[in-house]
């Protein structure tokens, strides 16, 4: 367990380094004079003059050589403080705080929905391999996997928001607003988790110890609840961690599609505005969120099957 945590901590550090150096290069490669740009962001484009720009340059120490700036920047990184947004002027962390809550809400509802949809259907299909449900599920999950998140979301919007008019296509705050974006993410996640659950269930029912339980005279439901479920869960949770990539990437696109005021939406907007501190902050948080989710799934695996030592 300690080893897993140590490894994940190392990963978190590497995420910070990678995002950090990329955004540092980004900052340096901004077209035009950085000081002028930042001054413009602060005081408005029409009130910028040479004195304001040089004041900014003094304050932020932009005239120093690159290596000094980089060193300073790493010290800042250790304090997890990407500074102020170039656009709104508010501290990046404050803005992210608000957005992170919205993203976490969306991600949590999506995960919950996908867990309700995927694994139960997959387990049912795995109990009767080759059956009608199994084949239908294979077709559906293959099609769902061939659709990028935003296409899936687009189709849901066209059906439920514009066609039937049941749910709003965009906005936030009410329960009905979270349903469509969460469902978009959940369907993609369930497409994979249902297949993993199905294959795991098949492996479990084919195993010698499962057969032995049957010989011993356990009923099918006793067998499943006492011997099946926990063993199916382990590969499922392992794959769940692979799927977190899907979740994080999905958040970027799905939030933009549904105008959900979360981190992904903010990141895309920050990239438009080339608001480097914002890009840096959101990318950092998304990367760290990814590592954290993986760590949680490692822990869950360990709890489900303590025999597994390696991550």
């Amino acid at each position, binding site marked *: 367990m300690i080893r897993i945590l140590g490894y994940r901590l190392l990963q*978190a550090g590497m*995420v910070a380094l990678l995002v950090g150096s990329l955004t540092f290069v980004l900052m340096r490669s901004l077209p035009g004079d950085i000081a002028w740009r930042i001054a413009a962001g602060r005081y408005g484009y029409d009130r910028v003059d040479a004195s304001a720009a040089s004041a900014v340059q003094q304050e932020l120490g932009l005239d120093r050589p690159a290596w000094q700036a980089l060193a300073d920047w790493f010290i800042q990184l250790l304090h997890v403080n990407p500074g102020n947004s170039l656009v709104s002027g508010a501290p990046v962390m404050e803005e992210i705080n608000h957005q992170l809550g919205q993203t976490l809400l969306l991600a949590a509802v999506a995960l919950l929905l996908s867990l309700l949809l995927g694994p139960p259907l997959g387990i049912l299909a795995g109990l009767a391999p080759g059956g009608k449900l199994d084949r239908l599920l294979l077709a559906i999950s293959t099609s769902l996997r061939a659709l990028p998140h935003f296409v899936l979301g687009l189709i849901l919007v066209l059906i439920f928001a514009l066609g039937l008019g049941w749910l709003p296509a965009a906005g936030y705050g009410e329960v009905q607003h979270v349903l469509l974006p969460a469902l978009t993410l959940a369907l993609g996640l369930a497409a994979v988790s249902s297949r993993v659950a199905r294959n795991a269930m098949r492996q479990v029912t084919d195993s010698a110890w499962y057969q032995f339980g049957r010989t011993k005279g356990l009923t099918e439901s006793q067998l499943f609840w006492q011997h099946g479920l926990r063993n199916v869960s382990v590969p499922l949770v392992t794959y769940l961690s692979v799927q977190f990539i899907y979740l994080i*990437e999905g958040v970027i696109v799905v939030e933009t599609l549904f105008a959900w005021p979360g981190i992904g939406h903010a990141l895309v907007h920050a990239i438009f505005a080339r608001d480097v501190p914002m*890009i840096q902050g959101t990318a950092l948080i998304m990367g760290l969120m990814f590592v954290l989710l993986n760590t949680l799934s490692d822990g869950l695996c360990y709890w489900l099957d303590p025999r597994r030592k390696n991550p």
Partner: protein
Amino acid sequence: MMMNIVRRSSLAQRAGAGLLLLLVVFAFVLPLLWPQDPLRQKLMLALQWPDLSAPFGYDHLGRSLFARLTAAIRLSLGLALISVLSAMIPGILLGVLAAWRGGAVDRGVSLLADTFLALPGLLLVLLLTALVPDSALMLYIGISLLLWVEYFRISRAIARPLLLSPAVQASRLLGLSPWLIFRRHLWPEMAPVVLTVAAFGAASAIMAIAALGFVSVGVRPPTPELGLMMTELLPYYEEAPYALLQPVMVVFLLVLSLLLLAGREKA
């Protein structure tokens, strides 16, 4: 080799290959017989039904959807193919090198691979495209950087036990060149796995390109790109639903054909 692959392929894989071939013919061969400019606007014809000069109808600026779709497929498939190839070659070389040399080289390259793994892929591509906006080059670099890790991991995993096998040990003692050992012993074991990974990689590249186009961070208008076309046609979903449906169907068919071609299930 070729026959072997055909014989071992499943029905789904053959279906995928067939579908992909159809799309390639549609995008690369038909425009040769029937050249059209995907950028030429005829505003009078905006959102009109198909006619002889535009068999798929017109978009909101009166551009031929047939010409735009074929150009967009060429862009997506071409970019995906180049990205996969340029991820595959260094990925495999680094994997074999790490297995061959072991020690510090192995640890160093593995750490590098883990660093890339620790970041969600689309995020990396987004950050790179932010460096030089509106350029397909950054898109290509980002996607390749994201895909090489997979090749590195599988080729290292396959090469490690093989390099210790008696056959390879004997070849090494005989002083045969590393290239010969790679061709004779390592590559035949890797090829089928590499093909699967390549098909998955191309599928995710196509999805990433479309996703970035859709959020308007990837290539810029008026370049025809599948995701971008969806963004552009979305406001006209009521007047011309078939127009919006076309890029959606094309992305679906492209990714589906590659997933089927990849065959073996993978999460």
